[in-house]
């Protein structure tokens, strides 16, 4: 079918993202991919999908776009066969150790952040982005990434454990 005819049949009034919104989406892509060049490629791919799509969430275009970015990123990971999924066994974890509170208490050195990013997976960086930049609750993150709340808590717990270990290596056992 002719592309223009297809466009006219499904044309809807879509949101046009401002510079500020595009920058925010790029930051989200950076959280997923770690590399700036990969982040730009991902944003471009997602933008093409958004502009081609026959429907759009007109009330929450940023959230809608983030979902497209996320799906495009997962597609790429699946294509490269480097995606990992794990389950969460809440019984092994002290309840005071899970949730944002456990991360809120952490202090980090200026130079540690790059090491931290490289140490974390894409999904973990995404969780941190949604928490630190977007201010999402655990439930909202779970809704956005389409995972059970327990899995998100598991990720947070493991991240904290890893950050703690890395910290202890540098500053000794007394560090948080």
């Amino acid at each position, binding site marked *: 079918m002719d592309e223009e005819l297809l466009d*006219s049949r499904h*044309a809807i009034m*879509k949101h046009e993202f401002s510079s500020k919104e595009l920058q925010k989406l790029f930051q989200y892509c950076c959280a997923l991919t770690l590399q700036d060049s990969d982040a730009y490629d991902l944003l*471009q791919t997602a933008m093409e999908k958004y*502009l081609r799509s026959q429907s759009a969430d007109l009330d929450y275009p940023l959230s809608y776009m983030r979902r497209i970015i996320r799906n495009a990123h997962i597609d790429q990971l699946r294509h490269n066969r480097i995606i990992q999924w794990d389950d969460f066994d809440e019984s092994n974890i002290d309840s005071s150790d899970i949730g944002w509170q456990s991360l809120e208490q952490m*202090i980090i050195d200026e130079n540690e952040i790059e090491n931290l990013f490289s140490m974390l997976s894409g999904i973990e960086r995404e969780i*941190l*982005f949604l928490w630190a930049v977007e201010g999402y609750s655990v439930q909202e993150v779970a809704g956005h990434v389409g995972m059970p709340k327990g899995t998100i808590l598991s990720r947070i717990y493991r991240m904290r454990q890893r*950050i703690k270990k890395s910290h202890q290596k540098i500053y000794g056992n007394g560090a948080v």
Partner: protein
Amino acid sequence: MSALKNKLKKEFENKKLSGEQLQNLQRMQKTSLGKSVKNIWKRYAIALSIVFVMTIAGFMTINQTGSATVVEKIAHQVATQHVKLKPLDISSDKFIEVQSYFEKLDFRPVRLEQIQGALIGGRYCSLLGEPAAQFRYIDKSGNEQTLYQAEYTAVQFNELANNTAPETIYAKGVPITIWMDKGIVFALTQ
């Protein structure tokens, strides 16, 4: 040392698209969304044109119907019913019997001596919304003739108030003679 959350926020917010990358993304949006908006307006314009044409056509139809005289309206209705004859309610060659059948009407249908054909029956019908009696006859050539009789009302038949002289007009190729006499409106197909 600073709190993890603040440090992360600062780190993420330091990530910026270059001017060229930003322009490229904005251009993608403008090209694609501009085309969509153009298509939407095109569709609205087509839809509005159709509505406009239909409205004008509707007004013309109403005006044409509205300007028709009562005689023309009766002729059109009688011709339509004559072309597609419905089954008789009563079959009889005796005028009294058929006349008696129309007891639900508020007037008494009358016999017209000038009709040459043989009566075969009748049925209830209407003329411009007024209850009417339809008598059906067969002439010597085997052609059916229909005679309508309805009570004169000023609301429906005002124009016929002085039409005591029969007026013949054609509708759908059928000659129809229409007149009013003694409070009854008559329409006779030839």
